[in-house]
Structures are given as structure tokens and as C-alpha cells.
């Protein structure tokens, strides 16, 4: 049987701090196919994550950046099996 290609997700520590039990780095076993599906999978485990990362639309919030295997992504960007998805807060605040 072929091994399932897992998706590695790296989250901001400031996001993980908002949800008890959320790690900074985790793997998703059933491959989500887009960035939006990665966020949906996170929201299923930690309800409310989607509201923190996304606006209505849905779209990523203005100061939330997502990279798929190092390339900038959007809500609809495909996530091939075995990818690493980085969610990073942009430079903002004061």
C-alpha cells in the first residue's frame, strides 16, 4: 500500500498561543488539497482558527501570509501531497 503523503504545517507561535493544545508544527495525514482545506482541517481540531486567519470571502486576513513549499500562496493555492505549509504573520503593529 502506498504511503499517504502527509502535509506539514508550521504555525505562528502567536496563533498557537490562542488555542490550548495547538502545536507550533504539526502534520495532517489526509492530504488537504488547498490552503483553504488546510485551514478547514485546523478549524475542525481547534474551532475558531478559521476566524483568526481568514476574512469573509473567504480570504486570508491582510497581515497573514501563507507559503506552500516556500512559495507565496492564497486561500485557493493547491497543496500537493508532502508539502510544507508555513503560516506567518506579516510585519505589522507598533
Amino acid at each position, binding site marked *: 500500500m502506498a504511503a499517504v503523503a502527509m502535509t506539514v504545517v508550521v504555525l505562528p507561535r502567536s496563533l498557537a498561543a490562542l488555542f490550548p493544545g495547538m502545536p507550533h508544527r504539526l502534520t495532517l495525514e489526509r492530504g488537504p488539497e488547498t490552503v483553504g482545506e488546510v485551514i478547514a482541517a485546523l478549524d475542525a481540531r481547534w474551532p475558531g482558527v478559521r476566524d483568526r486567519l481568514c476574512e469573509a470571502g473567504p480570504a486570508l*486576513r491582510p*497581515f*497573514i501570509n501563507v507559503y506552500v513549499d516556500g512559495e507565496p500562496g492564497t486561500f485557493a493555492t493547491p497543496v500537493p501531497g508532502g508539502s510544507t505549509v508555513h503560516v506567518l504573520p506579516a510585519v505589522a503593529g507598533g
Partner: protein
Amino acid sequence: MAQRLLVLVGTRKGAFVLEPSADRATFTTRGPFCNGWPIQHMTLDPKDGALLAAGGSPWYGQAVWRSEDLGATWTHSSEGLTYGEEGPAMRAVWHVTPANGALYAGVEPAGLFRSDDGGQTWQHVKGLTDHPSRSTWAPGNGGLILHTILPHPDDPQRMWVAISAVGCFATEDGGATWEARNHGVRTDFLPGPTPETGQCVHKMALATGDPERLYQQNHCGTYRSDDAGRTWTCLDEGLPSTFGFPLVTSPVDGDTFFTVPLNGDDRGRFMPDARMAVWRTTDRGATWHDLRNGLPQQGAYLGVLRDAMARDTLDPFGLYVGTSAGQLFASADEGESWRLALDFLPPISSVEAVLVDA
């Protein structure tokens, strides 16, 4: 049951919970809470004693935070705090107020939301957004924000809200429909006759004991309404400027309220002559008296934002003023004397004084 006083301080970098000594002379401080998010307002849910904090993170957006253990632990939710796919993106919650067994939240861009489950989920009070003037609403310097929510003390169908820079609105049917109530309030920043909406209201409050009387601090003056906001009378005579942000009423005397005039909207927005004062009227704004005892009287280039003044309900009542430079000044004698209660906080957005079970 015995009660204890808490002073809730929302800042640009988190929420703080202060507990005064019995004489309200010294304060213990806990915080910052809410992960350092900008917190615009805090209050107490009287239904269950939970603390609430309204704010918005530049990264993670709008939320109402809730603590059921007086600040030790917090949760957050923004479920339902949205205008949906067709509406504008929401940025922050600016005010949260309990009323009629529910919670109401004022948000940016301006709108009103209601929660019937303690802030876990929210529903849009669409009647306000549906007001015919909505397409003309424009932001002030702080954004297009609904920052004041005033429930009628006896009639659950009635409520007032204030939006910058749009003005005062009132409902008398539980929020289904709203009426703009700004007649008599100047708009010095607009040409031509005063419009129905477009007023830059900074804060409003109900007179204690008379829910038909409101007081208003505006970008363009200080006002009183004796007819539930339908018409307003300017009260500027005797004040050092027409510009300020907060306004707080006495908890025992409907004729008494307090403001903090700043030197002017185009002159730096700090204390006139760099001397800090809280101004009090005891005759509904006919005359004014400055309260300075204990407040800095030189080099006080300080601002005070719209929600950064509060009073408690003890006897005599206490007053609390937070500055944009992170000082909290407190008076335990209704403003007659003041002391610096706390320094070096982040810029203070809001102050509320609440009583909780001991």
C-alpha cells in the same frame, strides 16, 4: 454579598485588571491579558460575573475575549462577527455592553451585533446598517467605528448608539429601525448647513435618573439633549476648548458630568497649556469648574481617549482617567483630589470600574 472593586484597563498592548486598596489609594495590577492584542474596551457581564474585553489584532482580527475567573484565563470568539462575503471586512470590536440579558458589540467598520450566549456567537443588528444614510457614513481619524452603546434603563425596546464620524442613532423598536438624532450638533469640518448625519460624536452618556437626557462630547463641542437626542444644545461656554474625547456622568446626580477638554483638534490634542484638568459641571453644563488637585500642572502633553475615563459607584464615587502615555490617575473623592495610580502602562484606550462578588 460583599463586593470588591476592579478597574479594567484596555490598552494598545493588552488588557489589565487593577484592584484598588480599600481607600482606593493604591492598586495591584495583573496583566497584560489577551495576548497583547489592542483592547478597545472592557466590561463586566452582570449575568455571570465574567470579564469581557473587546478588541482586534492587526493579524488575527476582531474578537470579544471572555474570562470567567476575573482574568486568570481567557477565551475569545468572533463567530458571527462578520458582514459576510458581500460586506466590508471587519477590523476590530470597539465596545461591548450588557443590556436586557444580552451583550451588544460595536465594531469597525461601524455596526452593531448582539449575543445571547455570553459572547460565544453574535448576530448582526441589521436594522442599523440598513439605515438610509449608510452609504454616506465616513470614518473619523480613529476609523468608522461604533463606540458607544446606551441601553434605556427601563425600556428594552429603546437604545442609543454613537458612530464616528456619523452621529447619534436611536431605536425604539428593539433595533429593527433606527433614527438619526443629531439636530443642533455642529460639523465645523463640513461646508454648508449641518447635515442629518456626519457628526463626529466622540462619546455619549445618559444622565443618571433621567433617560430622556443625554450628554455628548463631540469633535465640535460639548452638548446636552433633553429630548432623548432629538435636539442638542451646545454647552461650550466656560470650557477651555470645544474638543475632547471622554464624558462620564455622576452615578448619583443627573445634573453632574465630567469631561477632559484637549487644546484643539488641530493643535496637538493635548492638555490646554500642558496642564492636566478634568472639568465638572453640576448644573447640566451651564457652568464649569476645573479639577486639578493632584494632576500634573506643567509639561503634561497628554491625551485621553474616548473610553479612557470612568467612575465607580461607591460613596463617594471614584473617578479614573487613563492617558495615551500610559498613566492612570485616580480620585476617590468625586474628582476633588487626584493621585497617579499607575505609570508606564501601554497607551490606554479604555477604563471601566466594576463591582464583582468578593
